[in-house]
Structure formats: C-alpha cells, structure tokens
C-alpha cells in the first residue's frame, strides 16, 4: 500500500484513503476542430511509461480534492505530489 502525501491536507496518508484518477496533464482538445487522430489520442492513448509517471489522485475520504502526483512506476516510489494547476516538477 502506498503512503501518499495530500498536498492540500499536508499529511501523508495510506493509499486506502485515495482514489486513482489516471494519467495527469491530459489536455482535452476542442472536439469541433480536433482531428480524428487528436481525439482518439486524447480518449484512449496513454504514455504508460516505465519510470516517471504524472498521475491524478483524489483524497476521497479526506479533503475530497484532486491533486497530481509524480511516481516512478518501476519502483512505485512517489517523487512528488502537487496541487492541481501547479506545473509538473522537472525530471530528477
């Protein structure tokens, strides 16, 4: 079980308090002008890296807010958690 620091509650809490929200920093293209390829990529295609992964979590039974997390998918080590709207931290 992961130990995740909620950037709003400013506390490290067990994974059971959180819901995973998938890959972070996806930008929804405007469906009126997006090509099929852009829309398909947005809907279904994911980076799925072995290494640093930017992802969303929600502190479901805490503050209830979404935030972003940088985690190494090979080791499951959490590198950073940060508030929605903040830029993804630089690679380490």
């Amino acid at each position, binding site marked *: 079980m992961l130990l995740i620091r909620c950037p709003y509650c400013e506390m490290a809490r067990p*994974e059971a308090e959180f819901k995973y929200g998938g890959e972070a920093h996806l930008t929804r293209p405007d469906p009126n002008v997006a090509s099929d390829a852009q829309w*398909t990529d947005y809907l*279904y*295609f*994911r*980076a*799925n890296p072995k290494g640093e*992964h930017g992802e969303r979590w929600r502190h479901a039974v805490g503050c209830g807010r979404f935030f972003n997390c940088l985690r190494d*998918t090979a080791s499951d080590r959490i590198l950073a958690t940060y508030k929605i709207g903040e830029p993804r931290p630089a690679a380490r």
Partner: protein
Amino acid sequence: MKFSFASLARQALTGHQGWAPQWRSADLKPAYDVVIVGGGGHGLATAYYLAKAYGVTNVAVLEKSWLGGGNTGRNTTIVRSNYLWEASEGIYAHAHELWKTLAETLNYNVMFSPRGVLQLAHNRHEEAALKRQIHANRLAGVEGEWVTPEQAKAFCPILNVDPGIRYPVRGAALQRTGGTARHDAVAWGFARAASGLGVDIVENCEVVAIRRDAAGAVSGVETTRGAIATKTLGIVVAGHSSVVAGMAGVRLPIESYPLQALVSEPLKPVMSCVAMSNAVHAYMSQSDKGELVIGAGTDAYVSYSQTGGLHIAAATLEAICELFPIASRLRMMRNWGGIVDTTPDRSPIIGKTPVPGLFVNCGWGTGGYKATPGSGNLFAHQLATGEPHPIAAPFALDRFRSGALVNEATAAAVAH
C-alpha cells in the same frame, strides 16, 4: 526426441539419464525474416505457427529473461471461451478448439483439463449480465449454461451458498468445456516444437532499440546481445508493450497494472473445477500438485513492479474464506504479481501499427493465457502475409479511431 510410451519406458529403465534439452540454445544470426520480441506463450506460439502453418522458419524469438517467466508463468492457467460479442466469441472459441488437441499437436503434455468453469453471480445485475452472456454464447455455438445455487454447490461442493453471507451466490454461469492447462508446459511445448522447426530461441536477450530505414519502416533491432536486421518485427511483450512500441515512436491505448495471484500449501483433491467471482476479484482452482491457485485483483495504479499491494491480496482472501470456508485455515505459500496490459475495451490489439513492418499482439490484459494458441496462430498469419486473419481483423489498432470497440468489460472484468 518424440515423446511416446516406448520412449518413456526406455528412459524409465535407464534412470532418465538420456533426455536431451527440449529446445536448442541458439546464437543470434545477423538477420531474420521475422523477429518476435517476447518469449512467453503468445510469442512462442506465434513462432511455432509461423514455421508450421506458414513455412516461415527463419525466425528469432528474443526473450529478455527466461522463457515463460513473465505472465505465462504467473497467471492462474484458466481456459474458457464465454465472452459476450461475436468478435470475441470468434477469437476465444478458435483458441479453445486448438487447446483441445494441443498436446497431440505439440507432442507435449500441456495437461489441458476441461474440468468446468463456474462464474458466480452475487446480485441481480451480475445475474442478468451473465445470463445475457450465456444467451449470446449459445446463439454463437459457444457452450454455456446457467446453474442455480444448489446446482453450483453440487458441481463445486466446497462452495458456500448460504444466502445470508456478504457475497451470496445467486447462481452461476457454467462452461463445462472450460478448465485449466499447465502454463509452463505450454511455453516449453511451443518452444520445443518451434525450435524443432528451425526457429531460433534466444534467452537473456533484451531489445533496447528498434531501427528504422529512411522511409520509416522497420529495418532491425538492437539488443543486449547485438544488432539484428529484419523487416518484420512482432511485439508480443504483454505488460511492457508500451515500452517496446515506444522504441519505434508508437503510442498504444494501453495501461499496465500489477495483477496478483497466490498459491496455498498443497492439499488432497478438494476442488474439481474452477470457480470465479468477478464482483469480489477472487477465483480459485486446484492444481495437480494440490495447491489451491487463487487469483486476486489489480492495483488501482499503473505500475511495472510485479508485486502489487498487500491489501489487494488480503481483500481477495477475505472473499475466498467466505465463499470457500475450507480455505480459512490454509497457509498461503507464495504471492506474486504480473504486469497486465489493459486496453480501454478489455479486448486485445492484434495487427499493424503506423510503422511499416512493425506489428503488435498485445492488450490481452488480465486474461490472455486462455487465448495463447489462437493468438499465436492468428498473429502468425498477420506476420506471414502482412494482412490480418479474418478472426483477428476486428482487433486492429484502428478500432480506437473508428469507434468499433469490442467491449468485454463484463466478460473480462478482472477475473480470468
């Protein structure tokens, strides 16, 4: 060396000292007609059918570690074919037919045991979904029937059908022709047969880069054991599909998650079938060694760690102990994870990529083992002819653009 009653008797009389290695330990040649990345069941089956059915024998299978050491050796060995949609019925029924004669085909005992697979329903919604699946299957000629809790209990006597438990059994979908097969033997049998037909199987050989020519087409691969030229490259690497395809700049609609399993200490025979519950992410059968083989759920998040969180396995065991009270005093011997490559519609991706010469057979997610021979056979057609086999055509990568998804979220869920 062919296995037969005579060869077994001769070896028995001479102390089993005369068995030869089952496949050649090949060295890399500088070039191949087809290179397959991934020496699991699907990759080895692809190589076998390429050589056997399509006469393509100048083939290499590259495995980064040892044969069948990934998901082939980590799954719970369940074989069934009762999926919902016609496309899925086609592909899984095709595999199911091959399983029935696979031991004879390969001259290798894969221990296919059609002992019956029960899929339990715990609420009326699951009951409706499973009945719909059964009706769809019967229209397509795929065997399956609905059984009451009492009938399920008669089929699987250790099942707890008390209506007052947390996960009461309201009935079950039963596929009597489903069952199990020995996973290691499947990898070894395909490897032995492919090697005998001239395929080079190279272990401890990890692909680190994919080479492309000026037109963008595949021209070869770079590995930890040197570079190889090839114009046809098949990626059959399950959990690492995004990583290997990424070497050619190809993105896939796949996310990789750890899926866990456990085995108990060995018991005398107590369970003659497979029972699975999608709702509680628990499924169980008994191996021929006597261990209860238990499948658990996936972690919530993308990971390549091949372990998974302990709370996932614990939740499964809680449900197992309630559904099978006999299990409550058992010790678990081992617990492990495998990395499954899941697609948005829970159906595999077989076929072309945007890069000429680069093909993928991936996205089997939590349930690829059952399809091993069919997957190999169909992907061999793709690699040999350049075009998809009609059975595999609905599973092309392009379906995510066209919208013709094959949604098997109910039939596949996590339980296999």
